[in-house]
C-alpha cells in the first residue's frame, strides 16, 4: 500500500470517527447522567438531517440559519422526551425498548413525509477539497471534524470546570445529598437531555451534508456508535473522541487492506472484547 493511500485512509478514518463522536456524544451523556440508553437519538439525528435537507436543500434557506434553528428545536425535543421518561420512571433497561418504539414511529413518520427513497442534500457552501501535498481534505468533513472534536472538548470542560458540571456529577453520585446542598437535580437532568437533543441536531445537520439519506439508514451507525460510547467510557467526551478515532481509523485501514465489507469486524470485535474482559467499565 502506498503512503498516499494509507494517508488518505487514515484521514477518512479520522473523519468517520469524528462523526461517530459527534453522534455518540449525546448518547454517552444521556446514558451516563440520565441512565437512558437512547435509541431514539439516532432517529433524532435523522429527523434533523431530513429537516436540513428539506429547508436548506429543497427550499433554499441558508444552511447556517437552518442549523441555528435546529439546535433549540431539538433541545426542546430532548427535554420533552426526558420529561416523559421521568414521568413514567422508566428504568435503564426499559429505556432501550421504549426509545426503540419511538425510533420505529419516527422512521415511519420520516418515510411518510419524505418517502423511502434516497435523497441527497447538495451543499454548495462547504463544497470542494483542500489539497495538502498528495492528500485531499474535503471541506465539509474538515468542518464537521473540527466541530465534533471541539464540542467534545467543550462538553468535557463544562463537566469539569463549571458549577453546572460539578453539580451534575455530584447529583449522579448521591441525588439526596446533592439536593441538600442546593443542586436542582431535575432541572440539570432536563438540561442534559436538551443538550443531547441539541447535539443530535448538530449531528443530523452534518449527516445531511455528508451522506445520502434514507429512512432505512437510521440504525446504520447504531453498532459503531455504541462501540465508541462504551469504549470511550460513559459520559467521558475525551475518551469518546479517542475511541471514535481509533474505531474510524482501524475501520478505514481494514477497508484499504482487505475489502470494505470487512470493516464492521474491527469495531465490534473491540466492543465484544471490551464487554467480556472489562465489564465494570460501563
Amino acid at each position: 500500500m502506498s503512503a498516499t493511500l494509507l494517508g488518505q485512509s487514515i484521514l477518512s478514518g479520522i473523519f468517520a470517527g469524528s462523526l461517530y463522536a459527534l453522534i455518540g456524544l449525546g448518547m454517552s451523556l444521556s446514558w451516563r447522567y440520565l441512565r437512558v440508553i437512547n435509541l431514539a437519538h439516532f432517529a433524532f439525528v435523522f429527523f434533523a438531517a431530513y429537516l436540513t435537507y428539506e429547508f436548506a436543500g429543497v427550499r433554499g434557506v441558508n444552511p447556517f440559519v437552518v442549523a441555528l434553528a435546529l439546535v433549540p428545536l431539538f433541545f426542546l425535543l430532548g427535554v420533552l422526551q426526558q420529561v416523559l421518561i421521568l414521568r413514567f420512571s422508566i428504568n435503564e433497561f426499559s429505556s432501550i425498548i421504549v426509545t426503540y418504539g419511538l425510533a420505529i414511529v419516527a422512521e415511519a413518520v420520516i418515510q411518510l413525509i419524505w418517502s423511502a427513497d434516497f435523497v441527497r442534500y447538495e451543499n454548495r457552501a462547504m463544497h470542494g477539497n483542500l489539497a495538502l501535498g498528495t492528500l485531499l481534505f474535503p471541506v465539509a468533513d474538515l468542518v464537521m471534524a473540527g466541530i465534533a472534536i471541539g464540542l467534545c472538548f467543550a462538553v468535557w470542560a463544562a463537566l469539569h470546570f463549571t458549577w453546572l458540571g460539578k453539580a451534575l456529577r455530584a447529583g449522579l453520585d448521591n441525588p439526596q445529598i446533592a439536593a441538600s446542598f442546593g443542586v436542582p437535580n431535575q432541572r440539570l437532568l432536563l438540561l442534559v437531555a436538551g443538550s443531547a437533543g441539541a447535539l443530535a441536531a448538530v449531528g443530523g445537520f452534518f449527516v445531511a451534508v455528508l451522506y445520502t439519506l434514507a429512512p432505512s439508514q437510521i440504525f446504520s451507525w447504531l453498532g459503531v456508535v455504541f462501540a465508541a460510547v462504551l469504549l470511550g467510557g460513559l459520559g467521558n467526551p475525551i475518551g469518546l473522541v479517542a475511541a471514535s478515532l481509533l474505531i474510524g481509523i482501524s475501520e478505514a485501514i481494514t477497508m484499504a487492506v482487505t475489502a470494505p465489507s470487512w470493516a464492521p469486524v474491527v469495531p465490534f470485535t473491540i466492543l465484544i472484547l471490551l464487554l467480556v474482559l472489562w465489564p465494570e467499565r460501563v
Partner: protein
Amino acid sequence: MSISMSSQNIVPARASATRFVVPALLIAATVFFVMLPAFKPPPFFESLLYLLFFWIALATSWTILSGFTGYFSFGHGAFYGVGMYTTANLAGTLSIWWCLPIAALLAALLGVAIGAVVFRVRRLRGELFALLTLALTIVLATIILNTPIDGGPGKYLLGVQLPVIYENSATTIYLMGALVAMGSLAIARWVQYSRLGRGLFAISDDEDVAEVLGVPTYRYKLLAFAISSGIAGVAGAVQAVFVSYVTVSETFSGTIALYVILMSVIGGARHWLGPAIGATFVTLLNFTFVSGDSALAARIVIGLALILATLFLPEGVVGLFRKRRLAHVQPALEAAPAAPPVPPVTLRGAGVAVAPQLERKVILRGEGISLAFRGVQALDRVDFEIREGEILGLVGPNGSGKSTLINVMSGFYKPDGGRLLLDGENIARAPAHHIAQLGIARTFQIPRPFPRLTVLENVMVAAMFGGASMRQTMSIVKAREMLAFVGLAERAQALPSQLNLHQRKFLELARVLASDARIVMLDEVLAGLTPAEITSAIAMVRRIHGGTRTIVFVEHNMRAVIELTDRLIVLNQGRLIAEGAPREVMDDPAVVRAYLGAPDAEG
C-alpha cells in the same frame, strides 16, 4: 384457550384438568393445521398462516431465553441466520430433513458458545448482554458475507427438492412451518413449568439469590440459550426454503431481532403463550396494511404498542389476565392479620440444656479464611468451627466481617486464601449452588424474595434446588408446610411486595427451612423489627433449631444473642478475637475494647 390457561399459571400446582387440556389443545391445533390443506383453502391463506407460524416460532424461541431469564438478546437474527444459511448451503446436496436438524444443532452450538463466554462475566448486566448479542450478530454477518458461506451476492435455493405431501411443494413449507410453530409452543410451555423454567424465572428475578438457593444458574442459562437458538435455527432453515433467496443484509438486519422482542413484549415475555399472541397481533397488522401509507400507519401502531406495553403492561397482554386474578385474590389477603401469630413456644432460659460442647461433631471448619476487597482486609486468616446441632453466635461491630464470612460460607464470595471443610470436603471454591445443594442455606439481612414469584413459589424454588432437591410436586407440599410453620400459609398466593418487613423475614426463614439445610445461617434476622416482633422471631429461631439443626446466628441484638446461642465467635476488623460460651466471651476485655474502643493509654 388463552384466557382460561393464562390465568392458571400463577398457581404452581396446576389443576390436573388444565394439565391435560393445554397439551390436548396444542395437539388438536397441530392436527387442524396439518389437515387444513385438504380442504383447499385459498393460497394466500396458506402463506399468511405460514408467516404467522414463522413469527410465532421465532418469537417463542426468543422468549425461552430472553423472556424467561430476563437477558434480552438483540441478536436473535444470528441464530435464525445460521439456520437460513445452513439450508442455503446444504439443501442442494442434502435432503431438507437433514438440513433442519443440522440447522438446529449449528444454531444451538453457536448459542452455547456465545453463552459460555458472556455468562462467565460475573453480574453481566442486561444492557451489556443486549449489546453483546447485537455486536456478535454484526460480526457473524460480516464473516458470512465475506466467506463462501454467502460470498456477497446472496444465495439462491433453486435445486431444493421438497417432498410433495398435498398437491404442491409450497404446502409442504406451510406444513413444516405449522409443525415448527406448534413444536416451539409445546417446548416453551414445557420449559415454563419444568424445573428448568422455575430456575429461569428465579434467575430473572434475582440471579444471585437463585444461585444461593441452589439453582445452577450458569448451566440453566446455557441450556435455555441452546433451546432458544436451536428453535430459531430450525425456523430459519424453513424460512430459507420459503423465501428461496437468502442475503446477508436481509437475514441479519436488525429488524428480525427487534421484531421478536416487540412481539414478545407486547404479548408477554414471561409466559409461553405471550409471544404467540404478540406475533399474531403484529403479523396480522402488517398483513392487513400492506401497501404504502397504511403500511406506515401499521408501523406507527406497532411502535406505539411497544411503548405502551412497556409502560403499562410489563407482563404483556398475558399479564392482563394474571393481574385480574391477583386483584381478585388481594382483598382476601388484606383482610388477613398483618402479622402472623406468635408461634406457641415455651422459651427456655439461656444456658439451660446446652449440650456439652466438646462432644459435638464439627461439621464445618474454616481454616485461615482471608478475603480482601481493593486492599481492605475484610477477613484476615479466620479459623473457626461449626459443630453439629449448635446455635453459634457470630458477632462483632459493624464492618467487622460477619456478613463477609456468611457470604464466603454460602459461596457468594470466594476467599483469597484458606480452606472451608464441610465433612472434610473443601468447598471454599465451590460454586454457590453446589454449596446450597450440600445443605448450607442462608437468609439475607435485607430480605431478597423473588419479587415476581408468589410467596409459595419463592419457597418452592428453595425446596426444589436446595439440599432437599425435591421434585416439583413434592416441593409444593413442602413449601406449604413451611409457610404454615412460619405463619404465612394464608399469604401463599401473595406477591412479596404485599408482605411487611416482618413477614418478608419469615419468608426468608421458610425458604431456608424448605431447603432442608443442615446448616442455616441467619444474617441479622432481627434488624428492623419491633420489640414484639423480635420476641416472636426469637421463638421462631428456636423452633427452627428444634434442638438438632445447626444455626449460625449473626446479630447485633445482645439480648437475643445471649438468650439463643450456645457458643459465640467474635470478629473485629476481619480477625477472630474471641470464641467460647456467650457470657464469658462478652466479658472478654478484647471484645469490650472492640465494641467500646480502647481505654486511654494511661487508663
